[in-house]
């Protein structure tokens, strides 16, 4: 059976015609990097997309941001919290740099790796903008000898927020037993930015729904025995005062029993340890929400800017450039060809917001995909106006009232069947 399963999938290969078509598209793209690429134009399965435009202005703008001076500030009650979520001491900045794309070839081509810039936080300004909405939690639980402590959180009215927490274990962190006997670590750290993908995670208690989050390690404050972490999060369904959010840790522990089963794919007998699911969590209530300011483009679309992030309505694909211009003319380049100054970005679909398309089937495994039956959300259907939206979480504090304009440009490719084509929105939002 195992051989048949393997050999069945061995026979699933790209057809020669598709192979030739894709290869031709790749060769064309390599020859014309930075220019328009027209993808496969065969039949009704048409998709178009543009490559990013190369722009050096974004680097210049970023340099201007770095040049902003920070005045002396008073250390307030939330100084450490603001430093963690907005400041530059815990997460390193990385300058844009060029690297050889193909080191094995003399003409391998140079490419630019985008810069990521953390800047100092103005503590007085942070206190003024979000201080009143900070909720101090200071609750703990323990699992496998590790003490989890939720410290403080703040969230805005768009559902963007940040939580600081620690994980401490005086004797060093244990490796925790995973399912099926595999060993897993509690922390898997992205070496580039200290981004951690794994448990623990955040959950909206009332609807038992995970909240999208990216957890960053504060490398300056952390030690071998204590990790200081910041979870930047975004709840597509929004947050309101009084919502209960949970910091959750799940572990699977061997209960001393075993069972055998026949793997239907391989026909082999396996003995599997029975694992009990153990969950611990800290619950805390969302407090007052940080207000956001709405800016509007000529075509009526809106950008909602808070000190923590931005939500663009009616935007459902790539952003090439997004910048905030302040009243004094200085610029915060949020995202550009050579700059990515976000903690993370999130595309929200109508499905995330509970809308039902033409056909609908339950998302039974919670991955946001309706299994088996596709759901239709026509671009031009007013019922879904504004439901496709993009959220970017800033990597610094923004003063919304001081934002004179937001400029965003990008490419939106969409798929076929009477709606195929591409859009190249270029919008400027003003208060």
């Amino acid at each position: 059976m195992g051989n048949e399963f393997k050999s069945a999938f061995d026979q699933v290969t790209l057809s020669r015609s598709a192979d030739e078509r894709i290869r031709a598209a790749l060769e064309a793209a390599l020859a014309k990097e930075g220019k328009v690429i027209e993808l496969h134009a065969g039949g009704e399965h048409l998709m178009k997309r543009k490559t990013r435009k190369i722009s050096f202005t974004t680097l210049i703008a970023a340099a201007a941001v770095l040049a902003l001076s920070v005045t002396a500030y008073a250390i307030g009650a939330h100084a450490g919290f603001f430093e963690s979520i907005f400041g530059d001491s815990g997460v390193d900045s990385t300058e844009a740099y060029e690297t050889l794309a193909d080191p094995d070839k003399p003409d391998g081509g140079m490419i630019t790796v985008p810069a990521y810039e953390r800047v100092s936080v103005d503590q007085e300004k942070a206190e003024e903008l979000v201080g009143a909405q900070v909720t101090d939690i200071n609750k703990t639980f323990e699992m496998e000898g590790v003490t989890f402590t939720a410290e403080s959180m703040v969230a805005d009215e768009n559902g963007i927020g940040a939580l600081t927490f620690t994980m401490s274990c005086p004797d060093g962190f244990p490796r925790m037993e995973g399912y099926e006997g595999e060993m897993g670590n509690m922390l898997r750290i992205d070496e580039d930015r200290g981004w951690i993908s794994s448990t623990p995670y955040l959950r909206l208690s009332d609807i038992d729904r995970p909240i999208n989050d990216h957890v960053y390690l504060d490398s300056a404050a952390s030690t071998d025995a204590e990790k200081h972490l910041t979870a930047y999060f975004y709840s597509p369904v929004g947050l309101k005062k009084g919502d209960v959010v949970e910091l959750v840790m799940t572990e699977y522990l061997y209960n001393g029993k075993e069972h055998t089963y026949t793997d239907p794919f391989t026909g082999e007998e396996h003995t599997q340890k029975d694992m009990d699911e153990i969950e611990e969590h800290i619950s805390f209530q969302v407090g007052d929400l940080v207000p956001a300011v709405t800016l509007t483009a000529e075509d009526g679309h809106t950008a909602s800017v808070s000190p923590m992030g931005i939500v663009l309505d009616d935007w459902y694909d790539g952003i090439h450039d997004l910048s905030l211009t302040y009243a004094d003319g200085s610029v915060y380049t949020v995202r550009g060809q050579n700059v990515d100054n976000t903690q993370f970005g999130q595309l929200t679909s109508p499905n995330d917001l509970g809308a039902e398309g033409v056909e609908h089937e339950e998302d039974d495994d919670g991955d946001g995909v309706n299994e088996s039956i596709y759901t239709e959300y026509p671009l031009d259907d007013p019922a879904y106006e504004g439901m496709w939206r993009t959220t970017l979480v800033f990597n610094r504090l923004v003063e919304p009232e001081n934002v004179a304009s937001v400029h965003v440009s990008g490419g939106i490719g969409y798929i076929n069947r009477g709606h195929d084509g591409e859009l190249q929105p270029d919008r400027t939002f003003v208060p």
Partner: protein
Amino acid sequence: MDVLALYDAHKNMVFRLALSFLKSVPDAEDATQQVFLRLIEYRGRIVPGKERPWLAAVTANLCRDMLRAASRRRTEPLTEDLVFDTPPEHEIFQSVMELSAGERAAVYLYYYEGYSTAEAAQILGLSQTAVTSRLDRARQHLRGKLEEVRYG
């Protein structure tokens, strides 16, 4: 990083994973092309030697986007054109295609590509528990069917 060499080395992995999600050969071909165009764009940020899991993760993300994409109408499975050497192989493939999209992807990565549940979880952007749960469900769904194929 030689994009075309990577394409030759990994194109069928990307295509099979895309097909596992999308259950449509034309859509999987579109996805394959899209994934390798993204490789061109982002190749400078990929750790050498990690191209295969990177491509798998991009494929998974792209396919989820496609499943959720605007203007997408309901489509019937478009895998009938695939030809297999033996009837059991065809039946096995079709049985796997009857699983949910998430289960198909987990089965493909775990059983065919040989990734561990932890690695598959990282590729699919899920917890290890979720992947294990999908594999368990897939085994349960297919146990009877595959036994039938196995013993006639």
